[in-house]
């Protein structure tokens, strides 16, 4: 039992308090908010620190527009996998097969498009369905036959890796149709007058700022309508300003190069969609419930088997998407594609706040965890650290992130 449950925090100043509180009061409010949401903000701060560190170390190269653009492209498939993996881990399971499914779907895609000349949009749909089927097969064994996910997906990892080799006959296969390449590797089209910036990206950035502000304000107003307590206006303003600044800086960086990559839009859609699903949809709640306490969830009428099944089906589909993006980016399907992707995705989830016992984590956390790894990779490449030491450092970062979490939890008391 912790003391901070009942002990009133000294910090919260009365909403719209006297002018005397001033800047001092605001800083205190922010610190207070931070402390209460250590879990959520901890990794965001860590990401900021890592970015700052490498920005200095590479004398600014890390934040060059071209590099930022590259960062997005390089990490897109891991981030896609991390979203699905986070949901699997929240449900209290693990999926070791995603790297192999990524390769498998890449192989199938190449066979369909390169050897059989099937139009790429149709082939993409087919590949997503195949990924979903692979996930569903594993999900069935886990949810309904009651086999441990570790074992089922370990088997899946072997099976799909082997099948990839069979399909591709051990060869790499390419190239992919141009349309698909543009999706995986391309940027939004150039429109409008020449402004030295990518116009469409700027526009999108502004729309995004407007959407964020609108959403936040609406949320706040609805909370007030329900006569619920809302954070003080000053804190709200600071939050909005910070969000706006972050979006604008990122937009400007991308816009001063070739604009926003197409996969960034896909990623954003996935982040918003799955974030919403996990946070607001009934089925998302059920995922948290079965991961947090399975017996209690069952006794609450949650259809645990169906939910588990769907979680793995979804993971398979996302793995297929990652496989398509990966294959198209390198313009070839290779039997060795996606090696260790499952481990990267799992590491991203745990860095991003997942818990081994399930029930904890957010989709945004998975993205942040994936970005921590991505920036580390990219930054270490820029400063010329060899892949040998890169692995050591990434391992230590994973340990540190989870160690911090364990320590933080113990401090709060359980």
């Amino acid at each position, binding site marked *: *039992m912790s003391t901070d*449950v009942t002990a009133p925090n000294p910090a919260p100043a009365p909403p719209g308090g006297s002018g005397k509180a001033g800047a001092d009061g605001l800083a205190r409010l922010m610190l207070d908010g931070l402390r209460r949401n250590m879990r959520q903000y901890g990794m965001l701060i860590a990401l900021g620190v890592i970015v700052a560190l490498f920005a200095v170390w590479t004398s600014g190269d890390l934040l060059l527009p071209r590099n930022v653009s590259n960062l997005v492209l390089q990490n897109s498939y891991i981030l896609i996998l991390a979203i699905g993996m986070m949901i699997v881990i929240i449900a209290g399971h693990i999926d070791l097969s995603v790297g192999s499914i990524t390769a498998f779907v890449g192989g199938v895609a190449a066979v369909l498009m390169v050897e059989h000349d099937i139009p790429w949009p149709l082939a993409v749909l087919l590949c997503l369905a195949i990924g979903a089927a692979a996930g569903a097969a594993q999900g069935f064994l886990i949810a309904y036959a009651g086999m441990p996910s570790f074992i089922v997906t370990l088997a899946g990892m072997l099976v799909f890796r082997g099948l990839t080799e069979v399909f591709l006959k051990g060869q790499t296969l390419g190239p992919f149709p141009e349309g698909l390449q543009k999706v995986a590797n391309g940027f939004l089209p150039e429109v409008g007058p020449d402004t030295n910036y990518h116009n469409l990206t700027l526009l999108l950035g502004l729309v995004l700022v407007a959407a964020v502000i609108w959403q936040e304000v609406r949320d706040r107003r609805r909370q007030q309508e329900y006569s619920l307590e809302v954070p003080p206006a000053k804190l709200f303003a600071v939050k909005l300003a910070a969000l706006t600044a972050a979006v604008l800086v990122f937009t400007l960086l991308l816009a001063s190069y070739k604009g926003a990559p197409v996969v960034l839009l896909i990623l954003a859609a996935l982040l918003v969609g799955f974030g919403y699903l996990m946070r607001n949809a009934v089925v998302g709640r059920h995922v948290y419930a079965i991961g947090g306490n399975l017996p209690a969830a069952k006794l609450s009428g949650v259809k645990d088997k169906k939910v588990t099944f769907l979680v793995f089906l979804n993971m398979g589909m996302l793995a297929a998407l990652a496989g398509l993006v990966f294959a198209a980016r390198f313009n070839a399907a290779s039997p060795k594609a996606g090696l260790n992707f499952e481990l990267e995705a799992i590491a991203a989830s745990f860095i991003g706040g997942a818990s081994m016992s399930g*029930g904890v984590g957010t989709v945004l956390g998975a993205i942040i965890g994936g970005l921590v790894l991505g920036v580390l990779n990219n930054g270490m490449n820029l400063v010329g650290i060899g892949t040998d030491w890169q692995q050591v450092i990434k391992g230590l970062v994973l340990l540190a992130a989870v160690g911090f979490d364990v320590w933080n939890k113990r401090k709060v008391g359980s």
Partner: protein
Amino acid sequence: MAGPVLEMRSIVKTFPGVKALSDVTLTVRPGEVHAICGENGAGKSTLMKVLSGVHPHGTYEGEILFEGDVCRFKDIRASEQRGIVIIHQELALVPYLSIAENIFLGNEQATRGVISWNETLRRASELMRRVGLDEHPQTRVADIGVGKQQLVEIAKALSKEVRLLVLDEPTAALNDEDSAKLLDLILELKEQGITAIIISHKLNEIRRVADSVTILRDGRTIETLDVKAAGTTEDRIISGMIGRDLDHRFPDRTPHEPEAGSAPALEIRNWTVHHPIDQQRKVVDDVSVNVRRGEIVGIAGLMGAGRTELAMSVFGRAYGRHAGGTVLKDGTEIRTRTVADAVAHGIAYVTEDRKHYGLNLIDTINRNISLSALGKVARRGVVDEHEERRVSEGFRKTMNIKAPTVFEPVGKLSGGNQQKVVLSKWIFTGPDVLILDEPTRGIDVGAKYEIYTVIDKLAAEGKAVLFISSELPELLGMCDRIYTMAAGRLTGEFQRGEATQDALMRQMTKDKEVTR
């Protein structure tokens, strides 16, 4: 040695917020079988944990003298070295190791770290013969019944040169035949000079094996009686266990007059359930109960009586193997094959084990409250978080859940407040029938009163309440009607006016052969 073998003097043990033992004195004479009895929560198990060093010296007050020496055990190992061995209700055996391996677990027959299997098997066979266990020593423990597993535990104790054997409700999970064998063995060991303490609330058992009995109530020693003395009747023991202090701990309740003619809100007919693993064992045996709208009906029974199993098996077959019986809601038969079915039919079950079955401890109050009825705060599969927050804020206020906001993780709350969250969760499903399983277990007196008030209000609103409890005062204080259960069977039914603690306890401690 003429003095007592064990003396525990004025033991006081406090947990945060609860005084589990307030003044317990226990004196055990050498070579006797000493029974300890008392209601659930009277402090029996805590006392034995103090004795065995689970609660180490320094975490309690008072002193322990064993064979004349003052003992300050720092852990279980220390007490076992003195020859005090406890066999807990939940057996501590490794199912996939053999009998012989289990007997010598932690005490391996080895020289310089290498196990001598010949010695292990030889000594294991010897010990098994002593306890009358007729199995091969290399049989896996998972492959023998609970009764035999109990014998393995005793053999394990004997291997440690036990001088004082403590058995915590040893027959709770056993059938009649195995129970009888076990009791015989305890008497045999007594002949061999082993002193035993047996915790039990089966009075016929106590009369059969014990020489003296110490009665605990509310963490105090009430009295120690000589079982063989003429004055020690079952009535005497029962009155010791329940005490006489029934004070105003309940809301004033106007007893409900059931509307004649209308069908009961919930009726369970001839319900039989088998144990999920040991499928020969009937855990619930041909039980029929009913409860009307506005009525609070109690189910009294001690541990192992099958009350929870009855409730959970009715609530979506959440326990055991269903072997027969029907459930009627408002006079028509309903199917409650899954929990979702049961909830849809307006049945709610508030578990006795809120940490394991009731709550997602790492999640917040609002999300726990809404979980069973998310549909009520969602539109087309999307949860309206504002509505959810409003609803749970409402419960926080009306149920007086002590937390600054509804975004507090329930794991941080006290037991009483957690219980209020579980109750809120099920009230939010809008049930017609609430099955409350030990709703006041492990919470303090103040919170208990609040929960009684809530229950009373629910009944006044016309809901039917089945109230499972092993605390007789609260059943007598709250219920319109009380059923008693023992060993899986219904053993009695009492109207509010005719129920007394003595009468209930008599039916609750009844064994099968006496009943029919």
